[in-house]
């Protein structure tokens, strides 16, 4: 993985502040109302006093008697409840899949291949260069980013935006269920904790995303936004059920399906011994032979996820590793602001 040199303490592996300048006028806000502990800029289902009047409604049994507008009763002889709008802060939970499959960084294993490397490098580098030779240089560096790295960069950027607008961010790591849970926080130091937690994760084993989501649903007391970063390489049904738990609890769920370019378009290898990153199973394959069939199936799988999530009113975003994270995030935020996902 590429190392980032932090001389100021402001840059981290997954967050470079100078890149965040792109998002200085961007607000990450929920589509639904959220409940927060403090007053904020986001609409809240909570009603209260000493906040901005919103509307009247007729009294219904069960309403607090103290909420009745008695002055209005005196004028109209009818019982009305006075409604006020309440703005709350938002809690964004970042759930990152850190299973072994997220570690995939292409045939070169995450090494950045530049032209100077290939010119003076070993035969292996040259071979790697020939494999990726068809791709443009501009995208080569991005190509060698692992899915986990890309997910973390996106999550870190969202976290930064959230904290910048004085909302709270929580971080969850899905590995064999919910491996890590960092409570929501709204300070910069909390963001640094999140970044540190991301960097120290083992990207290994299985995610068991469904379990992780369920556990998260149980822990999250307040409604907010849950952003899930995963390659979704697990059975669809349990995950959908777990996500339903979140949505039933009033959370907005956004799924970022992070896939490596090699998963969408098989690498230009003729024969290779392919090993499953999670199960360790091996199969000898000629990529050329199955390329067409595979690419059809992966498109089908992505479409299936997209359709299933949209049916549950969950945003689905396919993030290939060929697209830089900030572009993907910008596009998502733009679409979100326009009501398009």
């Amino acid at each position: 993985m590429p190392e980032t040199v932090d001389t100021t303490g402001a840059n981290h592996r997954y967050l470079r502040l100078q890149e965040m300048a792109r998002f200085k006028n961007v607000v990450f806000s929920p589509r639904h109302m959220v409940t927060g502990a403090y007053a904020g800029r986001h609409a809240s289902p909570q009603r209260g006093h000493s906040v901005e009047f919103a509307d009247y409604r007729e009294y219904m049994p069960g309403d607090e008697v103290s909420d009745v507008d008695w002055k209005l009763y005196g004028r109209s002889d009818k019982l009305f409840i006075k409604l006020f709008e309440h703005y709350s802060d938002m809690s964004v939970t970042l759930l990152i899949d850190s299973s072994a499959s997220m570690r995939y960084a292409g045939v070169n294993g995450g090494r950045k291949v530049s032209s100077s490397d290939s010119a003076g490098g070993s035969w292996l580098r040259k071979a790697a260069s020939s494999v990726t030779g068809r791709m443009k240089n501009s995208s080569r560096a991005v190509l060698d980013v692992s899915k986990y790295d890309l997910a973390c960069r996106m999550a870190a950027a969202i976290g930064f935006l959230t904290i910048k607008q004085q909302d709270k961010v929580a971080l969850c790591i899905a590995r064999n269920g919910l491996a890590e849970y960092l409570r929501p926080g709204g300070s910069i130091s909390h963001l640094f904790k999140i970044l540190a937690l991301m960097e120290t994760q083992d990207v290994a084993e299985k995610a068991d995303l469904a379990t992780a989501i369920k556990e998260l649903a149980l822990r999250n007391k307040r409604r907010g936004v849950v952003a899930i970063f995963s390659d979704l390489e697990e059975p669809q049904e349990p995950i959908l059920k777990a996500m339903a738990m979140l949505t039933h609890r009033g959370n907005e769920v956004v799924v970022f399906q992070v896939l490596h370019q090699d998963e969408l378009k098989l690498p230009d290898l003729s024969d290779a011994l392919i090993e499953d990153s999670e199960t360790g199973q091996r199969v000898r394959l000629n990529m050329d032979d199955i390329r067409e069939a595979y690419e059809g199936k992966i498109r089908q799988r992505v479409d299936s996820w997209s359709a299933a999530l949209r049916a549950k009113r969950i945003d689905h975003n396919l993030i290939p590793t060929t697209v830089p994270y900030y572009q993907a995030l910008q596009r998502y935020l733009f679409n979100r602001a326009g009501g398009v996902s």
Partner: protein
Amino acid sequence: MMLLGALLVSLPIIAHLLNRKAKRRLVFPNIELLRSSAASQSSLFRLRRWILLILRALAVLLIVAAFARPLWSNDPAVAASGERGSAVVLLVDRSLSVQGVSGGVSGLSAVRASSDQVLAELTSGVEYANVVYADAAPAAALPSMTSNLNVLRQELEQLELTEHRADFSSAIARAGQILADQSDGKNAQLVVLSDLQKTNWDDVDFKAVNAALPEGTKVTVLPAPAPAGENVAISAPAYEPAIPMVGQATVLRAKVTSFSSEAREALVSLRINDRKLQTQTIRLGPGQAREVAFTHGFERVGDHRVALTIEDDGLPGDNTAYLAVRVLERVPVVIIGDSDPNQSGTDTYFLSRAVAPRGGTLDSYEVRYVTTQEPIAGQIDQAAVVILADTKPLGPSLLKTVREYLSTGGGVIQFCDDGPVADRLASLVGSEDGKDLPWKPVQMRDLGAQGNWIRLAEADWRSPLLRSFDLPSQESLQQIAFRQVWRVADVQDTMRVVMSFEDGSPAVGRTNIGTGSLVVCNFSPALGASDLGKYGSFVALMHAMTEALTPPSSGGLGSAPGTPLTITGITGVVADGDPPRVVGPEGKPIPDAVFSTLGDTLVASVRSAERAGFYRVMQGDYTRAIAAVNVDPLESDPARITEGELAERFKLAGAKAVHAGGGTTGGLLELRGAPLWGWMAGLAMLMLAAEMFVVGYFRR
């Protein structure tokens, strides 16, 4: 080498194995989809690597095998000949027609190229070969077959064409003899390198030819060079009259034939004694033949060289027709008889005066007397007619000469005295037992002894013999009394009775012997036998018969190149002068010319007149006789048969192994069988094409 080449087969296998061994290990996020994708492939798709391996290995194997030049033969003898070597005779056509030039390529160069190719396919020290030249007198290039092919190459490099007509029957017989005598049981092969001229091969008796070849001889007919294009030929030169006299208008003619598919114009030039005297332009339609004639009066006695020439074309050898014309002062008439021509009343006395009534140079005929026992070979060649005055037995030499003269177109008049007429007729017609005579003399009727006579009564006045007789002459002839006449019986159909006596018995009859004519008169002009000599109508009768029997023209085919030439009529040779020599058309003496005497005449013989043109017998600077040799007009015809047709003719006549055309992939000859490498190369290409198809198909 073959084994080393076969190792190449391992290349695709190694490549396959290298391909099969995974080049690298790749940890992939999830192989579930990869597996399911692989599982959805067809079994054929999964086998395609094996299919490709098989195709590639087969392609390599076939290419290696093709380089090994494999052969296929069902014949075990042929298959085994690889060890023993083959015996090959090249039958090389060097007749006139091969001289033809088409598209700038001469037939000679094409034949040389083909022969070079054939020799290139033979192996020195293994195969034995010889060359038989197919011309008028076929002969082998070397006395025996040789495995030293360089000798044959040198021989063929010096190959020169002839103006002969090819005698393929003899040539193949000679080749068969060589193969039978010298092939020592090896695989015998006859390779025909010919221009496949139709007229040449139409004359071949293929059954006889096949019989002349050893059993199992393989015949290979190689492709023929292209025929000469746009050929026009001049042939059949002749002159008329046959015995021209000084100042007499003589017609010199020849046949001009166009073998072109388009209308042509031919400029014909007449050269006499190397001087160009006249020209004519004639138009010829496609394939048309026309006669061209020049009239010329020769100014001096002697032999003249007449050449009728057309312009050069694709086949220069047939552009000149040659005539040797001997011009005489008077036409000779030979009278053979033993009586004294100067004694009044004898048959020769009356005959000589009837033929040359003025007794000097004013007569158109010059009478030559010969007794029955004189050898006169050279004297009657130019005779207009030979008159046999009596029936005394002829000497053997004279009889042979007369019979030859008669059978080759001469005219003979036989008068019958009281001698052995039947024997004379038998000797003239060549009947040994006296049978098959034109008519049979039965009895000499001596009417004079009884004081009687008989006259001529009926005659076929329209016959060529009597056509010139007018009515008064006919009546005058019918006044003549005959006292001794022969009664004949068994008149054959071939004998045409021209005149009859009063009693209806034949008086004069004419029959053909060979190409000549024999006129038999059942009477004698001697004084005791008839009153013929007393009548002027006898003079008219003799002149009429002489003119009718004289050949109208002379010339014709004559000798052809490659055939023996005999020059007769040699006159003026001085015994104590330089030895005579024969000079050929190129002006060089012919070394093997032989001079011999026949009677009192000199005859020159040339074993083979190689070229067309004039052959002169010279003594010192003087020409004593000239003979013309003309090419065979059949050589001018450019019509060809294909090698397939010729092969078919061999096959129809019983030849078992005939190969037409010669392969291009494996060479002209199939010495050890049919070449397979062409097929193998083709199959290899097919395998590679299939491999490309399979690769492309599965890559779609």
